[in-house]
């Protein structure tokens, strides 16, 4: 290693800086969670308290007593599960076709996928709303879900993953007389575990945190997803916000994702890294 000639002080300094950075990055979350157990009076005290002096579950009680947040939590979960299942299925199918099969129009399909990889949500907002309104799907689950069942990013990710699988396996299957569908189901899919996991995790996360479209299409509380419920709830209280409730709401949105992330952190980080290298 090169670092062996580095003096102990510079090493110590490096660790101090990295640790300070770590604390700065993590503090807002710790503050959020601790604050969600404080009453309004304690939250507005100067100087602020760190650990809750009189811990209370009132914020969570009010939040879940209202019925808005449990419903939004269920909506977010349902929408994210359906969108994830669809993306994993459909994107791996096209990914395989684009990676390993020869067909007329292949370059066109791939070009379309690449061209729409970076389309901002704002560009499709108006036409999508017009379309969904004419289909009678404003403020419905299909309206929330249909536009995200497939994503160009998912196709790109699966294509990149499958293209690295050895061709010999496919040829062996073909010699044994297996059709392309069977090769896909019995040879490709079982090898796609890591790719599918990455896609699944990133899609679920994207859907859980998605804001713009649900904000537009969910017009009544019964169809709000968590970010929409939280944002509109926070807008309702511009003058004297009930910070305890807001922090509890933010905790409910963030903590499930944090838990999933901490369990699957390797998968997350490898997934992100792989999008950059390729």
């Amino acid at each position: 290693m090169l670092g062996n000639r580095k003096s102990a002080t510079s090493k110590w300094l490096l660790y101090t800086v990295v640790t300070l950075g770590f604390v700065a990055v993590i503090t807002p979350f710790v503050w959020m969670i601790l604050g969600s157990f404080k009453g309004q009076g304690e939250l507005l005290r100067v100087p602020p308290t760190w650990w809750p002096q009189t811990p209370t579950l009132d914020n969570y009680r009010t939040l879940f007593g209202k019925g808005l947040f449990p419903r939004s939590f269920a909506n977010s979960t349902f929408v994210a599960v359906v969108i994830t299942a669809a993306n994993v299925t459909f994107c791996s199918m096209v990914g395989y076709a684009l990676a390993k099969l020869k067909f007329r129009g292949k370059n066109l399909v791939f070009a379309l996928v690449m061209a729409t990889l970076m389309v901002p949500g704002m560009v499709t907002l108006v036409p999508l709303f017009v379309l969904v309104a004419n289909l009678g799907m404003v403020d419905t689950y299909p309206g929330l879900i249909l536009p995200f069942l497939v994503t160009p990013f998912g196709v790109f990710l699966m294509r990149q993953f499958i293209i690295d699988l050895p061709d010999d396996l496919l040829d062996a299957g073909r010699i044994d007389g297996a059709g392309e569908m069977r090769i896909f189901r019995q040879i490709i899919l079982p090898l796609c575990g890591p790719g599918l996991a990455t896609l699944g995790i990133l899609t679920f996360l994207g859907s859980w945190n998605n804001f713009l479209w649900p904000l537009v299409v969910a017009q009544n509380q019964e169809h709000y997803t968590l970010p929409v419920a939280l944002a509109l709830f926070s807008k309702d209280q511009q003058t004297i916000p009930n910070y305890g409730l807001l922090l509890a709401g933010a905790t409910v949105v963030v903590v499930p994702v944090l838990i999933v992330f901490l369990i699957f952190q390797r998968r997350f980080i490898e997934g992100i890294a792989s999008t950059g290298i390729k």
Partner: protein
Amino acid sequence: MTALSPAHDPQASAVPPVDGRPPAARRRKGGRRDNSARQSRAAWILALPFMLLFVVFTAGPVISSLYFSFTDIRSRDLRTPFAVTFVGLQNYAHVFADDRFRTAAFNTAYFVVIGVPVTLGIALAAALALNTGITKFRTLFRVGYYTPVVTSIVAVAVVWRFLLREDVGLVNTVLRWFGVNGPDWLGSTTWAMPSLIAMASWRNFGTAMIIFLAGLQSVPLMLHEAAAIDGANGWQRFRHITVPLLRPTILFVMVTTIVGYLQFFEEPFVMTNGGPLDSTISMSMFTYQQFGFGNYGFASATSYVLFVIIVCLSAVQFRFLRSNT
């Protein structure tokens, strides 16, 4: 980065000559065609669900949006979106003449021009630290730095709005330890935008850091050792070995970050509502508001202005990457 002309592109010479097929392949031509017809059919069956959904919900809307931007469509035309008047470039003329849009464009530029270097600077510093000096707790630091990325912007914006409060906010409390009286961050036309940039950098640098780390892993240690033997110090090695080898990665991260930051929306939506005095209204927020007012054609035009900027940036990236690899 040497300027490679297209003629010297290694990929160009990799294209096989027209009749370069080996004779064996020619003999089995009949069988091949059978196989390829079968493959083609299978491929289209596999691609069908995606293509249907993609055309209806992505490609179609991208084109409709362009069409709408040349019409006077408003919310009252919702049921008859194709029975509207074509107005040519009128929406675009109005967009560029609109003072609030210009403010939004300026704010967006501000956010990108300051936010991207700050985010990438922190990301690169963190990646270098984790890649070289840090051996203990490396995973812990990496996971910690990446954590904000997975969280909802709406949720963290709600939390930051509280952290940035003038009286009881944590930021000003910490500043007071050092004898500094912090301003009302989000209530000040001067400080609101820097606050949003700080939050965005905090939330997003993890992604860039992970990609930089992956890129740094591909820099051969041998080069560093050789340079160290020749007496190059840390900064010189960083400047003349790491940076040139990392250039494609930096470019990729830079373009994707710019593309993301150009669309910033949730931060001002939750934290400042575009204020104070429009000092944080972004192009995306402007589009969203016009959509809310029912000015569909006008909103489409504003979104296309943003889209064209993004397309140009992506084109620049592809150009550079091709001449680099």
